[in-house]
């Protein structure tokens, strides 16, 4: 890069700012302003219907919501959900990717099938699984599996059932990411390991996985955000009236109910949104701090 004179540098800064301006304006209006406004809303007890006055209550609203049993239940459900979805979704995705990373005739068909959930809408997926799990007309009772209460109506099993659907949905993306990672691995390193006498298992764990670690790390970050933001399956299969009693009221859904349900409470929604923001931020920072250290970026 050539060195610029002070005048030229100033001019290029001005030009850069000009180009950035549209984006900055859009972000300011649709992201930064609402983000800051949200902190303000959290300090107000809002009326149950639009157009009625709000009351300033300071932090008391936040403390009472964050210490409520409903919030703690929601937090527990959220973490359990993430813990179920991310590792299983990535492991299965990796397994499918390894299976499909072969040069056999017709493997393309399997790759399409494995990645198809990426283009399946959440609603369609949820309804298909909902029908399979339906206790009256579903596949499960036909197979003789008929728990009482049914899977999607049980405080114990509803969350794992919804998580299973989320895993299935996430599998497509996880598969594509893993397969892309596998295909980008340099053959010479794998070849060298094999020549050195390492078995398939050893090659996989000692060479493939470490070299795949940037991909896996990427998958963990994306998967965690995906899991935190899961919504459609819960709304379609469980619904607002049942989310809390069946212990599937994950944080995002709790926020949705506070803002878009039949009993909106924007003040509560603001407090919960800030809580979710802090949680995702802490998670991402922790992942960057601890996981990224173990990631091995091969000489690329």
């Amino acid at each position, binding site marked *: 890069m050539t060195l610029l004179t002070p005048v030229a540098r100033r001019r290029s800064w001005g030009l850069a700012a000009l180009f950035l301006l549209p984006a900055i304006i859009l972000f300011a209006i649709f992201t930064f302003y609402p983000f800051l406004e949200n902190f303000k809303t959290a300090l107000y007890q809002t009326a149950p*219907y*639009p*157009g009625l006055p709000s009351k300033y209550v300071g932090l008391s609203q936040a403390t009472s919501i964050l210490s409520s049993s409903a919030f703690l239940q929601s937090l527990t459900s959220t973490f359990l959900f993430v813990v179920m979805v991310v590792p299983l979704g990535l492991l299965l995705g990796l397994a499918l990717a390894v299976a499909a990373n072969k040069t056999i005739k017709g493997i393309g068909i399997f790759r399409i099938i494995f990645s198809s959930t990426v283009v399946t809408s959440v609603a369609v997926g949820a309804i298909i699984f909902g029908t399979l799990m339906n206790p009256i*007309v579903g596949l499960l009772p036909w197979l003789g599996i008929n728990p009482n209460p049914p899977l999607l*109506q049980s405080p114990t099993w509803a969350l794992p059932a919804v998580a299973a659907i989320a895993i299935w949905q996430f599998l497509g993306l996880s598969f594509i990411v893993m397969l892309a990672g596998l295909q980008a691995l340099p053959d010479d390193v794998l070849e060298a390991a094999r020549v050195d006498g390492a078995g398939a298992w050893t090659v996989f764990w000692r060479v493939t996985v470490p070299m795949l670690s940037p991909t896996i790390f990427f998958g963990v970050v994306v998967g965690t955000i995906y899991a935190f933001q899961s919504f459609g399956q819960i709304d379609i299969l469980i619904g607002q009236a049942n989310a809390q*009693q069946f212990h599937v009221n994950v944080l995002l859904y709790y926020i949705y109910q506070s803002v878009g349900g*039949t*009993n909106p409470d924007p003040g509560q929604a603001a407090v919960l949104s800030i809580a979710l923001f802090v949680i995702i931020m802490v998670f991402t920072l922790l992942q960057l701090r601890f996981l990224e250290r173990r990631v091995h970026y091969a000489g690329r």
Partner: protein
Amino acid sequence: MTNKRFFAPVLLSLGLLASSVSVLTTQGAVAGAASLPKCPLSALNNVTAPVQIDFWESMPRANATEMTALTDQFNASQKKVHVNLVQQGTYDETWAKWQAGLTTGQLPAMAMIEDIYQQGIVDSRSILPVQSCENAAKFSTAKFLPRILAYFKINGIQQGLPFNVSTPVLYYNKQAFQKAGITAIPTTLAQVSAAAKKLKAAGLGAFALKLDPWYEESWLATSNQLLVNNNNGRTGRASAGTFNNSASVGMYSTLNAMVKSGLASTNPYLGSSAYDNLLGIGSGKYSMTIDTSAALGTISSVLSSGQYPNVTLGVAQFPSLTSSPKGAIEAGGAALYISKKAPAAQQAAAWTFMAFLDSAQSQADWAVNTGYMPIRTDAAALPTVTSYWAANPGYAISYNSMKQGPTTYASTGAALGPFGPVNNAIVTSLTSMFTGGAKPKTAVNSANSSISQILQSYNSRVG
């Protein structure tokens, strides 16, 4: 301050005492009439082109077909008003859209809003009470069933005009009852349990308990028990639950025993599993259930397809909690509301359409095609209805139960702003008992304290 705190409970208990003996004679049409806003009926007098109004409604399946038929009939019958029917999805979705419309200003002139949101729509200060239009039009409600009118009144003022009114009824499979040797149709919850036992012993499906808090609330109404204070929220905004009474504990105990002994299976009342109790009757998994009478039209059309040869549908009155009920069944369904923000001509147009929908002939047509009850005695006496009921006695059940029993604040049911969360609290307490092992009394008490907490937080927010 100290005085207030001391007196409040005393006054409250006096109020409760009074309410438990009083019959709703004080809820006359004139109460509070002085402060009512004007209903601009004259705005329609000089219109040259039809006034277009949107009507948001939530009718599914067979009920939607009849809703469209009535609207078409109205549009063809006169030239001043044209109604555009807008199906907004479920009741909850219509209500959510109404609330969104309060911000955006996108509100229809007229909407069908579920009963449980009555106090909410009043508190949102977005409606013109239909009482105003009833007064302006000198509309007579003398032929209306009193408990239905009372159900849509708050502080004695008719807030919405009742239109589609139903009660829960007992649906059962006559063939299964015959196989199990049951001759007497259950009229109490205890008899439902006994019948379920016989059915199960005969190797047949037993009882499907849909976890719709409407039924628990109806059981309270049949026992003449209030759900909340301030006369079930009818004479002032409710501020505390009165759910922790012996009737509730008895009801919870019976339901718990049925679920625990496998005589009853549950399904949620909202979401994708809301019809599992009815589907289960079709598949033979269950032989009886409780559901709204409004489903009768749809059920009949499904059964008539011949897909279910093992089902002969029987309909009976909602079983009461005790054998000699002191109360009566409360109404359910929805009412029609007029938007406060709509232009005068549209408000007048909305009222004209409502009056048509509640005419005796419309109510008769509506009842025989849907399973909702005719809300007026003169509609029930029309040949349309009498001949249909003679051939299909199931359709008369909910009307007959609404004619029986006293009209008290308890049998009228509650009016609550946060009805959704209160319903959730009741369902959650039932689930905690069925799957969490909570004792009936503990479950009732926890539901009641949640209800009180929900009401207090709502009241402080609504100001």
